[in-house]
């Protein structure tokens, strides 16, 4: 009954939606307002104005950098939220969580350990070259985060967490937010507005380092947050 009702309702809702999409400008056409209005400026002036060959990076870090600042705040919020919801008072003495009942297969362990350096190198490449090639801070950071999760799975969280002691982790988690603030405020002091980058003049050489700094911040922060969320859910310390 409930299913049928829901279905009916949704089908009813689909009619205006489908009619509306049929009236939207045709997908893929180069004459769409989405392609003729703002984007030509990005594509033509982008490399010149922002120093990024990758226009997607130009958009997310420069033209609409404030959005990305908001986005790293969202994921930081998620971390705070997970901690706020899940952390329970520390037990007086540490109760050792029983290791998983099924021992980790040595094959898995070997593969993760062998691949780890390559994964790290790949992600670092992604992070620092984000302005000129596909990829960027998030992509790289998430890869490192995934590596940390994989390591936790095969080696146990405690051993993995030793790589990032709590004091360090606390600083790394907000890295993206803080890096944005540092670069943004520097831009504000030097070039007028928050998150401004130089377009010309004597500070032009700062542009790429700044972008890279932000990418590194996003990457490090992303990795730390993804891993910490995993640890918090697993029940060990965030």
């Amino acid at each position, binding site marked *: 009954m409930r299913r049928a009702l829901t279905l009916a309702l949704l089908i009813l809702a689909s009619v*205006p939606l489908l*009619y*509306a*999409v049929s*009236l*939207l*400008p045709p997908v893929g056409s180069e004459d*769409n*307002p*989405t*392609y*003729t*209005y*703002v*984007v030509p*400026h*990005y594509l033509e002036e982008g490399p010149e104005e922002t120093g990024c060959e990758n226009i997607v990076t130009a958009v997310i870090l*420069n*033209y*609409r*950098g*404030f*959005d990305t*600042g*908001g*986005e790293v*705040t*969202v994921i*930081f*919020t*998620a971390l*705070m*939220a*997970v*901690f*706020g*919801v899940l*952390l*329970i*008072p520390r037990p007086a003495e540490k109760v050792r969580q029983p290791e998983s009942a099924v021992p980790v297969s040595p094959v898995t362990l070997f593969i993760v350990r062998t691949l780890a350096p390559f994964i790290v190198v790949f992600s670092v490449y992604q992070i620092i070259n984000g302005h000129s090639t596909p990829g960027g801070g998030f992509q790289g950071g998430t890869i490192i985060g995934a590596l940390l999760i994989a390591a936790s799975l095969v080696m146990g969280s405690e051993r993995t967490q030793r790589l990032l002691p*709590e*004091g360090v982790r*606390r*600083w790394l*988690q*907000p890295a993206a*937010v*803080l890096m944005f*603030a540092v670069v*943004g*405020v520097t*831009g*504000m002091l030097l*070039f*007028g*507005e*928050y*998150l*401004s*980058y130089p377009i010309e003049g004597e500070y032009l050489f700062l542009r790429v380092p700044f972008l890279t700094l932000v990418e590194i911040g996003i990457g490090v922060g992303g990795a730390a947050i993804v891993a910490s969320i995993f640890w918090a859910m697993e029940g060990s310390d965030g």
Partner: protein
Amino acid sequence: MGGGQWPVVLIITPLIGAALTPILARRRPQIAGYWALFVFSIVTLAAGVLMYRVSTQGPFSYYMGGWRPPLGIELRFDEFSASIGVICLIGWLSLMFSLAYAKHALPERRIPYYFALVLLCLGGMNGFAVTGDIFNLFVFLEILSLSGYALVAITGERIAELAAFKYLVMGAISSLSILLAVGFMYALTGTLNMTDLAMRLRDVEPFPVAVAVGALTLGFSVKAALLPLHIWLPDAHSIAPSPVSAILSGLVVKIGVLGMLRMYQILYKAQIFDLSALNTTLMWLGAISIVLGALFAMVQEDIKMMLAYSTISNIGYIFMGLGLASKYGIIGASVHIFNHALIKATLFLGAGALIHQTGYRNLEDLRGVGKAMPITSAAIAIGAISIVGIPPTAGFLCKWYIALGAIEAGRLFFAVTLLFGALFIFVYYIRMLNAFYFMPPAHPEILDVGEAPVTMLIPIVVLAMLCLLMGIFGRIPLSFIEPAVTNMLAPIGG
């Protein structure tokens, strides 16, 4: 652009402050509260400066990264953005209230995260209020929503996680519906800037825009808990820690209304189609919200549950005012955004203090508390009188304007509903006051509890005073809102 980086201070400070909170409070969690209060004081200062600037120089913009719209993101400070004033005021007072409250109500380990989340929530709201870009609006909406969901569940209160999950699912659907609408608008116009959007929407297919408007309305009504999309609200607002309830009820639901106002700003300017169907719907839903919210509230025993349902009624006022689409109606709705925030914060913080001191939350158990905690109870009484709209308190002006608006629009029926709805509301508040003042205590030991700590008492008293003063000096919010509404309605010759 010239001068003044205050917009940055307003938006960025709470985010940085939140980012640093867990670091600073790692060893001593109690420090988090003072840090948050300090950070938010700076934000409040910035808000004050910006509001002063809006009131003296009129609206102005700040271009993030120096990119002019539509290339970059614009922060737009107009009269509706002046809601940062009330956000900061209530946020600051709630934070102050939290200092003592958190110590008692939360596990110590969660305290830093609590304050970080409150800062993020408030910062997100400030961002939402001032941004001039619809996608950026969505980003800030998510910051404040996510922190809101988590804050509901942050105590170990019974069924807190269920309430938070319900809130999260409803909230996420509404966010997605808003994002879908953003997608529609973007596909039609290729721009994300609000001012630009209003211009470019003039010559596009109207039907997809109508669907987008429907999706936006749906999304914002969930956030604002307009009936019948309110089901998440009562549990979430009554279970959250009291200062959070004050923020959620006073401010976060208003974010939905503010979103509606922004949408109307665009639509009135774009003149793309006749809005009367939407207006009529909102008006009716508003009227039903008023009455049903009041009826639900009447049968509640839990004081915070009652306040939560009362929020639904009051949101009904606001939506009715919006739907009337007459000058006074919209003025009344906008003023009620401010005033209801003040009133509801008073009530929730007051209720929080009562629960904190006595440990009871049912009206029956709280009997006689008026003698034990005279100041808090008096503040709650003032809040109750305000919310019903008895003059000369803050609530009266809103009721008056919305009623005038209804008559102006030739809809006497809605004026009648509004005024009688207020009476319904009074019926349950009088139950509360009777219990506080005119009934012998059910638990004699309640007479021995004293007033709450002074950091909790000050916010309550300040807010209660404001409830009175805003009624008497109703010109202050009005001086902001009237020109804004006149501007907004100008294209339709209102």
